[in-house]
């Protein structure tokens, strides 16, 4: 094994496959990142504008005589803010469109039995219907589901009012949003407004541009993402704690391996039904396989691992390596975070790359469109394609032996359930966050931090997530995680009860009593909405605002536009947010100062940029202690 692989990734499962890829001349994300050096400084600083065809314009800050304004007169602040705002809008659009698809699926579940979707959690459906003022008495579940789905879909384009879920935030938070005029109104409208106001000759005030961007970001966190999470729970069940395996070692040599990669559970849940179809398992046996092994990758993997016993094969930087094993018979993908490079890698092996969404086709891949109106039927066709490919395997197979286990499935409902286990049922009501608040107040738990986000070649894979998590749990800070950060933590063994040995005494005791690991897997990237709701619950219980809580957010290896939207809505929800990779705004000192200092005076939260996980942990701990002091605890 080459030592240099260790500088690129901290995941031991990858090394043998990186070596295999190198020997077989397969180009991976790390090779392309190296070839891309140097990366353009204008882009890196956010100072290149291509918003109109008078451009491209670039602001030159390193020499006296270089242009300081674009051809239209936009300065560095305007250009950097417009670029950032557009990225945030794109991120919000991606999450929210995911939410829209789930709402459509719920509608199909209600109206169209052929879809194969059914409401799995009527209790949560009725509770949401009640929250939204939808009549539930003497109505059957399908009628209620249709109404809830229609109401959710109206959130995207309603002409008046504001997003319903924003009413779930603590009162003080809502007042700040109203005062700043950032309370989202309708999801599509708020995304469109960013695109409009960043058009040539429109908004030039970087602070006002960020107001529109913040509104669009909040329409993601407290809108599209929350619709995605809540309606997924209604359709596919509320996650409950259970054990799953993780890392590329979950692939099986003697079974048909299907990697489901992307984001939306509408596809992965249907594929899961299809792989358990007796006809298809029989067909797999006819082809010489012992069965069908479905494993997840990226956030759709999180979605099904949270709700079922489906292994988590790997995160963003492992998608190519999964195919390099030579054991993947089909990689089935839908939307977001799917590298176009996959089709080239798949061509070098027997793997079939199957795209399924009309929103994401990849040249060289097989496109088998997934029809949500006939979900199970389309899923079966896709699985059949994978099964029939098993016989085309060559002997060139290398499945790393590395895999780990961990507890996943921590929805807010299951966290509160776990907390009920340590509530004195005679003295206090069940179903509250009281034990958590008590632990924080007493100082046994110093606070909580959400570690979320992607992989990025600018950080060795998983190092940012894992080192930060380890530093924090050592200091009695509970960690919750989603997305690719969750993969990093489960692969590093941080989601086991044994990980309590890495914790400070306080957190170790909490883990033992509540029977939880120190790092809680809360789902996919849209499920950061769960974290917003948990924060709201805790804040309301303590009668304070979210920003008063001893908590922080961190995205140590973020890379996507979605992560920018998340960071912005988390900051605007009042949370101190640590970024391990600098956003492309550093060319504007004003915008950088605005986001890392000034916003704190408005929303209570702000960004902090720190690439060293140990230093980042130190800053977060200082922040948590300052918040504790302010609360007098």
């Amino acid at each position, binding site marked *: 094994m080459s030592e240099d692989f260790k500088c690129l990734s901290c995941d031991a499962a990858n090394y043998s496959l990186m070596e295999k890829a190198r020997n077989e001349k397969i180009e991976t994300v790390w090779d392309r990142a190296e070839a891309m050096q*140097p990366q353009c*400084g*204008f882009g890196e600083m956010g100072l290149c504008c291509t918003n109109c065809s008078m451009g491209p314009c*670039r602001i*030159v800050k*390193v*020499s006296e*005589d*270089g*242009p300081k304004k674009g051809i239209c007169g936009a300065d560095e602040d305007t250009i950097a803010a417009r670029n950032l705002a557009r990225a945030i809008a794109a991120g919000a659009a991606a999450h929210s469109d995911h939410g829209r698809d789930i709402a459509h699926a719920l509608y199909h579940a209600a109206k169209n039995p052929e879809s194969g979707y059914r409401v799995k959690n009527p209790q949560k459906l009725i509770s949401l219907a009640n929250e939204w003022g939808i009549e539930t008495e003497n109505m059957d579940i399908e009628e209620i589901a249709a109404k809830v789905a229609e109401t959710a879909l109206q959130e995207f384009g309603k002409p008046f009012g504001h997003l319903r879920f924003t009413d779930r935030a603590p009162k003080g938070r809502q007042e700040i949003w109203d005062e700043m005029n950032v309370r989202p109104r309708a999801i599509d409208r708020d995304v469109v407004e960013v695109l409009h106001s960043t058009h040539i000759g429109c908004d030039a005030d970087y602070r006002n541009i960020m107001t529109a961007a913040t509104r669009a970001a909040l329409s993601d966190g407290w809108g599209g993402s929350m619709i995605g999470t809540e309606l997924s729970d209604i359709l596919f069940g509320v996650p409950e704690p259970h054990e799953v395996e993780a890392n590329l070692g979950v692939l099986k040599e003697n079974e048909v391996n299907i990697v489901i990669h992307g984001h939306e559970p509408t596809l992965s849940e249907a594929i899961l039904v299809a792989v358990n179809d007796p006809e298809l398992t029989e067909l797999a046996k006819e082809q010489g396989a012992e069965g069908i092994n479905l494993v997840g990758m990226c956030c759709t993997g999180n979605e099904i691992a949270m709700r079922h016993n489906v292994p988590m094969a790997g995160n963003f930087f492992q998608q190519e390596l999964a195919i390099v094993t030579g054991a993947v018979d089909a990689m089935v993908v839908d939307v977001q975070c799917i590298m176009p490079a996959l089709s080239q890698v798949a061509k070098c092996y027997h793997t079939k790359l199957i795209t399924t969404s009309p929103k994401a086709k990849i040249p060289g891949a097989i496109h088998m469109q997934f029809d949500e109106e006939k979900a199970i039927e389309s899923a079966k066709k896709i699985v059949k394609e994978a099964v029939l490919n098993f016989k085309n395997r060559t002997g060139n197979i290398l499945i790393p032996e590395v895999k780990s286990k961990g507890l996943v499935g921590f929805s807010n409902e299951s966290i509160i359930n776990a907390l009920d286990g340590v509530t004195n049922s005679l003295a206090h009501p069940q179903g509250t966050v009281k034990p958590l608040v008590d632990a924080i107040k007493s100082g046994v738990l110093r606070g909580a931090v959400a570690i979320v986000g992607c992989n990025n070649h600018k950080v060795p894979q998983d190092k940012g997530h894992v080192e930060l998590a380890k530093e924090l749990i050592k200091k009695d800070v509970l960690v919750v995680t989603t997305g690719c950060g969750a993969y990093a933590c489960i692969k590093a063994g941080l989601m086991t009860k044994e990980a309590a040995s890495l914790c400070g005494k306080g957190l170790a005791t909490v883990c033992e009593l509540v029977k939880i690991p120190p790092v809680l897997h809360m789902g996919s990237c849209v499920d950061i909405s769960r974290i917003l709701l948990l924060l709201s619950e805790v804040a309301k219980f303590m009668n304070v605002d979210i920003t008063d809580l001893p908590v922080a957010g961190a995205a140590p290896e973020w890379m996507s536009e979605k992560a920018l939207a998340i960071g912005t809505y988390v900051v605007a929800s009042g949370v101190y947010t640590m970024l391990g990779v600098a956003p492309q705004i550093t060319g504007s000192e004003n915008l950088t100062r605005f986001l890392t200092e000034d916003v704190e005076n408005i929303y209570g939260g702000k960004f902090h940029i720190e690439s060293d996980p140990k230093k980042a942990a130190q800053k977060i701990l200082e922040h948590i202690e300052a918040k504790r002091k302010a609360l007098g605890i």
Partner: protein
Amino acid sequence: MVKILFERDLCLGCKTCELACAAAHSKTKSIIGAIKENRTSRIRIKTNRGKMKLEQCMLCKNPRCIAACPTGALSKDKEHGIIHVNEMECTGCGLCEKACPFSAIELHTFPTMCDRCAEAEEPLCALSCPTRALKVKIV
């Protein structure tokens, strides 16, 4: 002789110089022309341990490329100091590419290296640089 000075700290790695060079050596003097004619750049911005690095002919006094050439296909222009390639003599062996200490030569059938835009008034790389990291000095 035209020297090109590289101020590493001013370079942002945007590679505008590379595009300008390829365009300057195309028939239509355009980027699209360069792509169509498969023209490559004779200047390259790379990184070495995170620092910007320039790969371009330095007009050496005793060029190692000429010494390495087994067929005598390379010669130094007495007036401008640039290297000429005699395409009738060159066999495309690539020894010059290997011999250059500045990685300034790339073999594309024949060796290509910076000619300081012999046909233009000023080297286009320096002219196009948005940060003035490349500067021309006549010596």
